[in-house]
């Protein structure tokens, strides 16, 4: 899934680029550490985007209506 070698993953964990916790001899990696793989964004950035998206649904319909009104009233831009 990561398309990285085992050694690279261990190296990224050591450098702190992937947050993981060691249980005995095994590392466990939380989904939030792999956010970039699924969303294209780090976990903290993805959360910022999600805050906006919650509001976007509220804005979308109103903006469409306003944009139509402005378009109809305007002769030039």
């Amino acid at each position, binding site marked *: 899934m990561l398309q990285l070698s085992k050694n690279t993953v261990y190296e990224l964990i050591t450098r702190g680029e992937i947050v993981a916790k060691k249980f005995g001899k095994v590392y466990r990696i939380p989904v939030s550490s792999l956010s970039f793989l699924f969303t294209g964004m780090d976990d903290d950035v993805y959360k910022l985007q999600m805050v906006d998206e919650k*509001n976007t649904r509220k804005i979308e319909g109103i903006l469409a209506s*306003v944009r139509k009104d402005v378009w109809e009233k305007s002769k*030039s831009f």
Partner: protein
Amino acid sequence: MGEIKIFLDSDVIVSALLSEAGASFAILGNLRISKVVTNTIRAEVFEVARRLGIDLSQKDIFHDLEIIALKLDKARLVETYIQYVLDKEDSHVVAGAHKSKVNFLLTHNLKHYRVDEIKTRLGIIVMRPGSFLQYLRSQGV
């Protein structure tokens, strides 16, 4: 790294008005990025804010933004920019981004724009605010 200049769609500015915890607000507050809008975008934001009941009297949301005028009549606007949008009403956004010579157009509604055409013909990357923040991080900005 050279100057990063972005054009903001109305929904990004309204999102910043609705929440200070989102990606849009983080971008508006980043003084290292030049941000441009048109007077049409500004008019849209004021009207959307009014309809949403947002009080703008204490907020100068456009303070750090460059505001330009397209100086295009409607027919010319549609003729030149309809190829980049699905609805003609959105053409002024692409025209604004093009005229201001930005690298990025930020919007929450990617589906309204023909992003591949805009990238290929105008050299402008259309993306969501969160993706742009990720880009900034990758560039160490």
